[in-house]
């Protein structure tokens, strides 16, 4: 049985309230001890210390040791769009970004709206994926927004939440049913909030930049209206509602008020939405095209405030690989989305260096909070007995994003060429080192 001893790092575990120099001992794929000093060979578990040669010692001096990151919003593209990303390449990208678990959205082909697709994903993930993969099931059959998918079966097969992400749920009646029905299994309902009657043919944020470029805009109201609707439905049904990729000031305010009113609501923001503004589109940069679109400075400020005051619980990537043929074309025809797993941590660390949030707070939004929302009881904390998913970060590591060198199969990032500071240098999943940078 493999033993890992991570020595001398600054251990940050918001769940146990730890932030200081500790050693972390991993045995049997679990966290076996977190103590100020653990000499190699200490008899820390039943059955003795074993052969000292089995001990892998990781010197974490000057590094951050924290619970493995969990991305609750990834698009893996398998099955159906393997030319963009496979479970294998997506998992490798995750590991390289410090993520030990990823929740993958249902908009594959076929759609993950029944247990056989869920089982297929899980089987592939066990065989080929270096990180934990948790499927998110569809709310409606075929993401069509007409009738409920077999949510009970999906849950049983291993889905950790339900969402029609990729397609806004325009059918308010069905959304109500979904929230009621998902409550039966205590499943999180993740909502991509967009009123398509307003967003219509919009391809970027509505405003001066869109007007200047002659591109059709999507107003903030398209998101705000649906956030308000879903909050009302959550209040009506008592469901666990999670708002995906919040992009507007209005959404942040609505969520804050809903939380104050005791509604069970949580929210995530992506690194690109709190880092970039809609001006990134200038030059018809299709790698700045996503849905929801990049917004204005006041929205970015509101998102940061939401992260700071806890209105926004989670940072998630909305990692959406797209092939070059879907991006190297006319802006209005290009596909939405960017890859995000490998840049999320570095971009999020900018929030810490800008004093928006503290490092323990960031760790919490990347690990403990998503674990709790998805019901992953043995993850998101470095407590004894928890799964040994650990991310080790070098805060001072400087690097330049080179899209050609990323592990993802796709190259669609607006951060190509960006200078970054801070990166995961070791990713440990279930007691195994799966990435070393």
């Amino acid at each position: 049985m493999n033993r890992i001893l991570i020595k001398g790092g600054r251990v940050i575990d918001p769940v146990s309230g730890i932030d200081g120099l500790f050693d972390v001992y991993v045995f049997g794929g679990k966290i076996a001890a977190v103590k100020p000093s653990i000499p190699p060979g200490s008899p820390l578990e039943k059955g003795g210390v074993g052969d000292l040669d089995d001990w892998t010692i990781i010197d974490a001096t000057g590094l951050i040791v924290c619970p493995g990151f969990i991305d609750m919003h990834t698009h893996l593209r398998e099955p159906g769009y393997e030319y963009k990303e496979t479970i294998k390449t997506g998992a490798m990208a995750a590991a390289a970004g410090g993520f030990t678990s990823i929740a993958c959205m249902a908009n594959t082909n076929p759609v993950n709206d029944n247990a056989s697709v869920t089982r297929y994903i899980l089987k592939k993930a066990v065989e080929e994926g270096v990180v934990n993969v948790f499927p998110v099931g569809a709310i409606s059959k075929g993401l069509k927004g007409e009738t409920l998918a077999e949510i009970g079966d999906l849950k049983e097969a291993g889905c950790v939440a339900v969402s029609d992400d990729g397609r806004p749920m325009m059918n308010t009646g069905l959304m109500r049913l979904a929230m009621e029905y998902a409550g039966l299994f205590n499943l999180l309902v993740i909502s991509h909030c967009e009123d398509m009657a307003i967003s219509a043919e919009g391809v970027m944020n509505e405003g001066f930049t869109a007007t200047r470029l002659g591109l059709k805009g999507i107003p903030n109201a398209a998101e705000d209206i649906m956030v308000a609707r879903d909050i009302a439905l959550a209040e009506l049904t008592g469901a666990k509602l999670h708002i995906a990729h919040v992009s507007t000031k209005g959404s942040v305010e609505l969520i804050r008020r809903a939380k104050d009113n005791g509604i069970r609501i949580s929210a995530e923001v992506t690194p690109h939405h709190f880092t970039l503004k809609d001006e990134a589109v200038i030059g018809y940069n299709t790698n700045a095209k996503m849905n929801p679109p990049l917004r204005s400075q006041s929205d970015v400020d509101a998102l940061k405030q939401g992260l700071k005051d806890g209105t926004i619980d989670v940072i998630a990537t909305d990692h959406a690989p797209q092939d070059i043929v879907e991006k190297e074309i006319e802006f209005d025809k290009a596909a939405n989305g960017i890859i995000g797993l490998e840049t999320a941590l570095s971009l999020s660390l900018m929030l810490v260096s800008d004093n928006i949030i503290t490092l323990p707070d960031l760790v919490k939004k990347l690990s403990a909070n998503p674990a709790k929302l998805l019901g992953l009881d043995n993850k998101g904390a470095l407590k004894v007995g928890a799964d040994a998913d650990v991310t080790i970060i070098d805060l001072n590591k400087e690097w330049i994003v080179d899209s050609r060198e990323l592990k993802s199969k796709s190259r669609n990032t607006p951060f190509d060429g960006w200078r970054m500071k801070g990166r995961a240098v070791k990713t440990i999943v279930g007691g195994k080192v799966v990435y070393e940078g």
Partner: protein
Amino acid sequence: MRLKRKDILTIEDLAKDEIELILSTAQSFKEVSEREIKKVPTLRGRTIINLFYEASTRTRTSFEIAAKRMSADAINISASSSSVAKGETLKDTAKNLEAMNPDCIVLRHPSSGAPQVLAGFIKCSVINAGDGSHEHPSQALLDLLTVKEKLGRIDGLKIVIVGDISHSRVARSNIYGFTKLGAEVSVVAPPTMMPSGIASMGCNVKNRIEDAITDADVIMMLRIQLERHKVPLFPTVREYSRLFGLDRKKLGKAKKDIVILHPGPINRGVEIASDIADAPYSLILDQVKNGVAVRMALFYLLLGGSRE
């Protein structure tokens, strides 16, 4: 001076002196069009491709005449007759066209920004002949030339643009063109056709034609393109025409010597009452003549010429 650029993609990109150079060069080319033999050998052996993803007989013909008057070989490719209809990407098309070794591609495309995308893929010059709701630089240049000829100047004039500003590439190019040359531009449209933040382009924003027309020197009536709107942006053509169409009654509030422009083709009785479109103060036919001259100037300047 010379035009130091490979492409003409927008008026927004052009500096004031570049616009003036194009206009004065175009003036020289008008003289060529009045000769007995309306053809000069300047671009003999050069290949110009008119790549049109949208039907537009007027603009295409104007570019074609301009190319032929300069003895260039003009090749017309329209979306329906080429592989573009079969899902070939703009990049594929660019690579295929490059094999023909063109000197210039004139692109009309329904997607905003497509000329910029094409220009990035190809070594030859690209002229934007209208892209989506973005810009239509040669149209603005010919409008500038027409007004300059008629009124002797651009600086200090008051220009009013009326119509679907949201979807109009002609409006955007003209706002930039006229303001760069010192005119004051007002845009008029119902709020459903007024794009957000348009005032930041440097124009006044008005919702009623009567509020804008009283001290205007030039009024430009945009064509209403019903086919562009999935959902109509006004209740009926009749109501639009009553509120935003130019008729004798509204014109009565204007200066006597106001000039009327229209990028054509006119929906008679919609944006302009029929009797006004044919009136002497309408410069619609001058616009057509100047269109050829401006396009000759663009070819000349991009493919190797300059003007003193």
